[in-house]
């Protein structure tokens, strides 16, 4: 954890449905790699954090100190992946749903 890069980037996170109590009704998967985003979006932001135009402007305004109290942009998921989940509904019928935005593919400063 400690040798994680400071800059905004994707970090590993495995979610086990048993840990959040959903395993009683979720048949598959038992767990999945969800990842998460963390890290700084400090001025000057490197290209790798793929800042939006707004984030670039915001970080300059913050660096110049024109307006006090402006935070640095946030490190958030950029591209995400879907996940198919097989579960039992309230009538204990088997249901398959493909949920979007369940795991992080890339992170960016926004």
């Amino acid at each position, binding site marked *: 954890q400690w040798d994680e890069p400071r800059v905004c980037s994707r970090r590993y996170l495995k979610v086990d449905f048993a840990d959040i*109590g959903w395993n009683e009704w979720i*048949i598959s998967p038992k767990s999945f790699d969800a990842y998460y985003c963390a890290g700084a979006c400090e001025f000057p932001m490197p290209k790798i954090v793929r800042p939006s135009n707004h984030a670039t402007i915001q970080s300059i305004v913050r660096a110049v100190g024109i307006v006090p109290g402006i935070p640095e942009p946030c490190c958030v998921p950029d591209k995400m992946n879907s996940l*198919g989940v*097989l*579960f039992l*509904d309230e009538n204990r019928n*088997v*249901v398959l*749903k*493909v949920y979007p935005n369940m795991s992080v593919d890339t992170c960016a400063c926004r």
Partner: protein
Amino acid sequence: SHRAPAWSALPAAADGLQGDRDPQRAPGDAAATLGPGAQDMVAVHMHRLYEKYSRRGARPGGGNTVRSFRARLEVVDQKAVYFFNLTSMQDSETILMATFHFYSEPPRWPRALEVLCKPRAKNASGRSLPLGPPARQHLLFRSLSQNTATQGLLRGAMALSPPPRGLWQAKDISPIVKAARRDGELLLSAQLDSEERDPGVPRPSPYAPYILVYANDLAISEPNSVAVTLQRYDPFPAGDPEPHAAPNSSADPRVRRAAQATGPLQDNELPGLDERPPRAHAQHFHKHQLWPSPFRALKPRPGRKDRRKKGQEVFMASSQVLDFDEKTMQKARRK
């Protein structure tokens, strides 16, 4: 009636069935994954769809949702009728396709034996007539709303030709399910009607039929759609009013009682005297400045028992001023 396409004509969405012709063969570890109690075909089929999506990203039926519905067997007039409760479908789910899966047996041996051994009818030239066609079966679908005792509205009928051997068949019943849902009749019944004289009382079979509904959930892209279907625990412990319900909503089981003031609220402050503690430099008021109205003469202090009674009487007489004993009065005067 609804002419269902033959087996192979089912759209690609229902694929993954080809291998299901032999229900004994559970693909991979699907049945194992679903646990011993879920050896039924519907669970195996659903797991196969899940694996197809997980491996190749193949969206089932082109949508993002597949709901399965197990059958509940009931015997009505000596006939097996399978009921399907479709109420768990959500309003945001648009139906793309619905399929009815059932295991059909070849014509039963006693029947076939009878047909084979029965002396065949002969035509004029003495040649035996060809065997009559095996008994045809019909699939009848009815829909009814939850709380009606009728047999329901006939939604469709399909003629089935008995298969050469036992195998799973799938029929497209999309128009039937869409029409039933449109009319709000989410209880569907399927009856296998055969021309056999005595089909015998049906027995629960491990190969019970099931329905698959392929849908597109329009709400699944909402920010928190996963919570709608998978977050089951209630963040508010049971018995607490719903977070959005108004405190005095009728749903609230608790009876609200207002505290009726039975008389002037009891407190130990003297009537009309300022409760603020006297400031150090405050002038000393003369007693008659404190009590503008002439103060009533004190009564002798009654004993504890009748004081309580007295107190009640006093309350009952709803006197506006409380009586205090001598000591309290002296303390008050000093204050």
